[in-house]
């Protein structure tokens, strides 16, 4: 169980893993996430499911090395097993025929965006995707996104691939050109904040999928608190997707740093080894 059957490096820091777990492969829906734990003394952390194959009984995860736990996951090789893997968690994305969907993914956020793009397309929507990263080598899953999109715009901060500029520039271009019925954004919190501000100007209903700190992932700990529309919600059971125009992104950014000093110590210890 939880055996890694495929491993692919998108870049030094971004890795795609295909993991055996037939039950989750069968039951997961677009937007769901899993909680993982690497090793007996590992930490529990969430990752959104990027893809699943119910026939082969596998799920796909994309991890970016940012700290000890993601590094430990990325260090696993084909044949190794993830110690603990549980899910699917969170409410699935509300998929229906809405018209035209603007799907926006930044960095590794493109991975969790992929099943949503696929599901919207299969539901009969026109899907325009904007994927963005700092530079060419950090653009991931472009072909897969293209497969399920009517059009794809690629943006890089440094102009090394696609068009130069932030994701919001690509979004503006599409919004100016055609009527968008709904927008979904997934990526770093700061990117989602500005993406939400962009669609708010045009009153386009927008969902953002949040990557809060979690321990259990089932509603028990409350570490993933986020303020939405002035009310405290739990990302794990009430989300992970919320109305992006109502999310307090500044608070969310602050809360992502809740264990920063402990993380710095842990990273120094781990990466110096």
């Amino acid at each position, binding site marked *: 169980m939880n055996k890694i059957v495929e491993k692919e490096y998108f870049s030094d820091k971004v890795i795609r893993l295909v993991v055996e777990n037939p*039950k989750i492969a069968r039951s997961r829906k677009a937007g769901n996430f899993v909680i993982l734990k690497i090793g007996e003394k590992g930490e529990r952390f969430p990752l959104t499911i990027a893809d699943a194959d119910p026939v082969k009984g596998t799920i796909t995860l994309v991890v970016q090395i940012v700290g000890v736990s993601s590094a430990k996951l990325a260090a696993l090789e084909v044949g190794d097993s993830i110690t*603990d893997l549980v899910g699917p968690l969170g409410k699935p994305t509300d998929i229906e025929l809405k018209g035209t969907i603007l799907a926006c993914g930044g960095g590794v956020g493109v991975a969790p965006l992929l099943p949503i793009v696929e599901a919207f397309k299969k539901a009969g929507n026109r899907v325009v995707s904007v994927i963005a990263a700092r530079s060419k080598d950090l653009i991931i899953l472009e072909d897969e996104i293209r497969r399920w999109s009517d059009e794809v715009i690629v943006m890089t901060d440094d102009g090394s691939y696609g068009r130069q500029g932030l994701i919001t520039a690509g979004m503006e271009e599409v919004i100016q050109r055609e009527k968008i019925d709904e927008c979904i954004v997934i990526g770093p919190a700061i990117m989602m904040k500005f993406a939400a501000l962009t669609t708010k100007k045009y009153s386009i209903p927008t969902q953002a999928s949040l990557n809060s700190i979690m321990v259990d992932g089932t509603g*028990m*700990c409350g570490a993933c608190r986020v303020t939405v529309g002035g009310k405290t919600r739990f990302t794990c059971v009430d989300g992970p997707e919320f109305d992006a125009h109502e999310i307090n992104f500044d608070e969310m950014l602050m809360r992502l740093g809740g264990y920063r000093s402990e993380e710095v110590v842990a990273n120094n210890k781990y990466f110096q080894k």
Partner: protein
Amino acid sequence: MSLDPEYLKNERSQEWRAALRSKIKNKERTAIQRVHMPEQAPEIRVKYQDREVNLGITAEQAALEASRCMDCVTPTCIEGCPVNINIPKFIKQIEDGDVLGAAATLKETNALPAVCGRVCPQEKQCESRCFYLEKMNLPSVSIGHLERYAADFERASGTSNIPKTAKPNGIKVATVGSGPAALSFAGDMVKNGYDVTVFEALHEIGGVLKYGIPEFRLPNSIVDFELDNLKKMGVKFETNFIVGRTASFDDLRKEGFQAFFLGSGAGLPRFMDIPGENFNGILSSNEYLTRVNLMGANSETSDTPVILGKRVAVIGGGNTAMDSVRTALRLGADRAMIIYRRSEAEMPARIEEVKHAKEEGVEFMNLCNPLEYFADEKGMVNRMRLNRMGLGEPDASGRRRPVPIDGSEFELDVDLVIVAVGVSPNPLVPSCLPDLKVSKWGTIVVEEDKMQSSIEEMFAGGDIVRGGATVILAMGDGRKAAENMHIYLQNKIANTTKVN
């Protein structure tokens, strides 16, 4: 079974019990002082998260304490026990020197005796119904200490007695959750010959016994030992499995499961909804205790971080608040404070926990209520504003209602705040079962005497029904649910056989 007067009478009239009764005069029994539980000294124990405060009584102390019990004709203590342990029998077995026999008696009705001997509020249950207290105004027999003694003796002896189980009947049943309610249910069902699988969402079995109760009150090794006994009886355990998500109830029905016990616990921590409560360094007691107890965040080798506060405020006056504040002390707090809006008299925590907390140096700021939190430029909490409270007329809980005192506001420097003001039921399971009747608080509605929910093959118990109670009440629910599910399934089989 153990509440049946005929059964109790027969047990009591056995020769060895009669002989013990005539050995010592009742006057001599009542003259014996109640045993004192030996404790680790406060200045030592605050240094160790994983060392028990209560050290356990010695063999001599246990024998003497057991001889206090008069083996009453009408043992009211049993009525006070939610799982109806045959209390006089096990105590007399200790007096008789048959401690392993005593342990076996405990296990007739209690799947987790070493746990209950440590965390049950006996003073509110069996011991509150003891003849000594009810009729003589003397301290009750120390039933809890004796229970722990017998369970610990058996564990140390290495000869664990595995309760007898009926011939397997091949009927599959499942529990959702692996806390005290589910484990108690599982123990009774496996004894009745059922094929029981316990499904747990976390990576460890035990529920609140593992993630909630700290090791200085209940070592994980003791929970593991009791779990091992259940495994030996044939109970199957599956971790990392969220019933309703990982697989649906229908999937499990297709796998042959005929009935379910829902014991998923009180999931969602409550907050007070006051300004600044989402600053960093303000967390639920569930989060704090899970990080330390389940994830071992206080150990060097664990990847899970925990904030080591120096000035720690714990909001609340229940057992969870005491567990949190005493954990904070052990993790190096200079000031560990309880902030509670009523007075000590209304505190829901066990008297023993409050006593231990005081001995260890916890500051009690009773009749105080948080109003707002403040943070530094990084969003880390550094200060809070409170006001003082007075007590008004009794409220719905029967306790005097706390009322704010005008102009009493003050501020306090803090660097870690743990909110322990209660929990709401976990919505995960009910949300997967549209036909399941839930109350307006989100608890599962059951027929109280049967623990049967609105879906006939689903029984429920523990905090998901009660909204927040004790280990032993949850275990009582589990037993009651097992008894009634057994009747339900046997009737169903009888009916289908008739039809065929």
